């Protein structure tokens, strides 16, 4: 394994060098960095031009100038690491630092959500192959696959962001929403759960009525203006999550596991009150993370105490349920800050369509909850637009993988042993179908740091995409900035590549790395 990694490392460095050389020469060729200065009317024009030539070593031809740039990186070994300066004279390293942070913030949530939801959709559609649901999902994923990303972004901005803000101004739900949404929800649940015609009709009815009730509740109480969950809803949702977790992982007939989930859900209520003492104003991100870990620990402890012949299974159920319940409590706390945020910070139009945060927020509030809400509202639309597009791919991949696995011999063996459907799907098929996905996820993760150039442009985020866009913009190609961008994305890509290989060998013992 070590020899493999060493060989990979050498090959990787060579590949990176070649690629960076290509990018450097092409970028330097893309235009004249002095164009803006040449047409300027300032009196010391010649001086400025000379200054810039000296600053960027422009008198050296590009194929050789690359080695000056490379020297800047190599001198990192003696402590003078530099990626050069931008045309405007800024240090590239500083520019990259903030841009990478912003981009990671933008892309992490959409990346994780796209994977989770994509896998869920792919799996459900594979299990209901050739059903109406499957065909609809297939068509929709093809559609989203074919949507230009700027289109999704612009549409979301205009029809979701602005429309929702208008709704908050005048909270009145149109009559057709009361009909349309329950119908859609009924159809989706009917498609996922399937079964005989009678069963499907029943599922449709229940889902539609439940959705109708939720919308009615939202409409009557102006929920979006003043959202809250409250202990009762938290308890109901926690029990629901618990039942779902149990049904999917161990099966409802595993009583110990079931009791664990219910206990954890009930313990959530005192936890809710304890958390809301003093309205949790003093909290910060690290403390919240610590509390999350404690919550998972408590969940595991409860499961372990319930015992049974396989107590770690119950402990796992407890941990997942506790995590979800904790998430509900935190969500409730965020909601209770919503109206303050909406009125005081966002002037009644909370869903932001521009930028990565309210400027000068720290002068208004230092509260963790307000800043958190500010990030959430700014992240919402870009996250959805990025998610919708990558979701399509993941759902296709996971559908294809699961179908592949479901037709393999060991699934037939599992069925022949008399295992129930849940065990076959969740334990035998599902896990193995995820293995090929690791490669794709790793590649996408490599592309993550490159930023979503288009989405960042539409939503005016100043991340990596913006940096690249400006560097290539009308002021002339800013070769050092483009190279800085490429260094980050290139290294991320090759590291992800190696990680994908290693993960693959770890997950699938049939694959051995060739040494």
């Amino acid at each position, binding site marked *: 394994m070590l020899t493999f990694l060493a060989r990979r490392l050498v090959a990787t460095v*060579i590949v990176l060098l070649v*690629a960076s050389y290509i990018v450097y020469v092409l970028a330097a060729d893309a235009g004249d960095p002095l164009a803006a200065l040449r047409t300027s009317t300032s009196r010391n024009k010649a001086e400025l031009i000379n200054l810039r030539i000296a600053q960027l070593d422009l008198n050296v031809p590009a194929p050789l100038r690359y080695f000056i740039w490379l020297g800047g990186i190599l001198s990192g070994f003696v402590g003078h690491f530099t990626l050069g300066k931008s045309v405007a004279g800024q240090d590239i390293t500083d520019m990259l630092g903030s841009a990478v942070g912003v981009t990671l913030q933008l892309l992490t949530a959409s990346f994780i959500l796209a994977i989770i939801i994509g896998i869920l959709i792919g799996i459900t559609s594979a299990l209901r192959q050739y059903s109406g649901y499957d065909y609809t999902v297939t068509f929709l994923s093809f559609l989203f696959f074919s949507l230009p990303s700027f*289109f999704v972004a612009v549409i979301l901005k205009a029809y979701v962001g602005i429309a929702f803000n208008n709704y908050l101004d005048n909270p009145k739900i149109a009559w057709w929403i009361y009909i349309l949404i329950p119908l859609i929800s009924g159809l989706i649940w009917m498609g996922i759960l399937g079964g005989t015609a009678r069963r499907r009709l029943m599922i449709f009815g229940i889902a539609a009525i439940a959705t109708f009730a939720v919308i009615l509740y939202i409409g009557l109480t102006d929920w979006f203006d003043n959202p809250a969950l409250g202990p009762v809803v938290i308890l109901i949702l926690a029990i629901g999550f618990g039942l779902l977790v149990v049904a999917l992982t161990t099966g409802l007939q595993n009583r110990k596991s079931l009791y664990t989930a219910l206990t954890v859900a009930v313990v959530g209520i005192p936890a809710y009150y304890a958390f809301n003492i003093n309205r949790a104003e003093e909290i910060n991100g690290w403390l919240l993370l610590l509390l999350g870990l404690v919550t998972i620990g408590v969940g595991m402890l409860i499961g372990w105490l319930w015992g049974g012949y396989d107590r770690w299974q119950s402990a796992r159920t407890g941990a997942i349920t506790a995590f979800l319940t904790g998430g509900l409590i935190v969500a409730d706390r965020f909601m209770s800050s919503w109206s303050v945020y909406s009125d005081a910070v966002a002037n009644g139009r909370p869903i932001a369509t521009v930028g990565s945060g309210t400027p000068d927020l720290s002068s208004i509030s230092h509260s963790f909850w307000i800043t958190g809400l500010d990030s959430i509202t700014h992240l919402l639309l870009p996250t959805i637009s990025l998610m919708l597009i990558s979701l399509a791919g993941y759902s296709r991949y996971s559908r294809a993988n699961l*179908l592949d696995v479901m037709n393999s011999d060991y699934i*037939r063996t599992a069925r022949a042993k008399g295992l129930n459907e849940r065990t076959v799907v969740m334990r035998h098929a599902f896990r193995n179908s995820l293995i090929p996905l*690791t*490669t794709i996820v790793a590649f996408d993760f490599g592309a993550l740091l490159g930023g979503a150039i*288009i989405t960042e442009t539409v939503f005016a985020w100043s991340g990596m995409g913006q940096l690249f866009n400006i560097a290539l913009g009308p002021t002339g190609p800013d070769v050092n900035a483009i190279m800085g961008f490429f260094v980050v*994305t290139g290294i991320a890509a090759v590291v992800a590549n190696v990680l994908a290989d290693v993960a693959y060998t770890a997950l699938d013992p049939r*694959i051995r790395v060739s040494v």
Partner: protein
Amino acid sequence: MTAGLIPPPPTSGGSSLAESPEDSEPEIGDTNAVTPAAGNLEDSRAENAIELKEVEGLSQGRIVMRRFLRHRGAMISLGVVIVIILLAFSAEGIDALGIVIKGWWKYRWTDIDNIQNGGQPTLSLWPLNWGNHPFGQDSLGRDVFALVMRGTQQSIMIVVIVGILSTVIGVVIGSVSGFFRGWIDTLLMRFTDAIIIIPLIVLTAVLGRTYGNLGSFVLAIVLGLASWTGLARLVRGEVLALREREFVDAARVAGASSGRIMFLHILPNAVGVVVVNTTLLMSATILTEAAISFLGFGVQQPDVSLGSIINLYQNAFNTRPWLFFSPVIFIILIALAINFIGDGLRDAFDPRQKRALNKAARKSAAAARQKATAR
């Protein structure tokens, strides 16, 4: 090499564990896999026999062709693409490489007319009426229908050129690399890796910034030079597997040259991978071209492509949304249609595809079965 990217030789009995899922879309039949009841097994055996009978005496190409023609989504999409191409090229005529043929539409995309009715679209579906400016006018008074048709032409031309160019480069590099192995393989694949780690949009945007103002034809060639990498890898994997097969040995014993073996013996067997991935690459190119034109690095004024029309009017979205929607609808239609065609081709070329695909085909299979049992 990345362990996860080399498709396994077809002899591995359908375990596609190292296969990149893009090229494995196993729409495996639901004949007996999900519920292996005893009765179903009989059924599926009978069905298999019928399928074998159905393809009796047909060449591989004919079988693939039949499967493709039966894929309803692909057929509809093919129709859509043909209609769009005919519409775009006949409406605005041809103006490329110095050849100018006028189209039937009364405005050209450069014509400036008086703005009528605030530039609103005059198209109405019921009763069907085109009016003077079916897609409206922009603030200068140019006819948006003419612009969009010209943009569609340019986008389609770019896609076709990129498809041809990247197929040629990808196939040559992939086959040479897979066939000769050794240091040639290492060299070529490291080079491919180097191009792959440059994000496509970065490469195309940088190239587009340099060459975009030389016209869309040059831009298309430049894009083609940047997008062959995925295909090269896939073809290499395919060739690596195929070169170990007996027919290659037979050809070598018969004295065929390396070039002949590569392109006349091995390549025809890899044609499925090439065709499917070229199609999917073409639908991705529509979006890539739109993306870089949207950023302003693609086709430059006065010529237009679908992406550059959107770039031109992106600020007018709130006041004149038709400027934005008409090109977008064409982008989506083309990309979606090509995607479906690619899906149909993939299903048609998939050797594991045993079962007919759509309802019509299922019906015809049922009819055939009845005929068989009646006999």
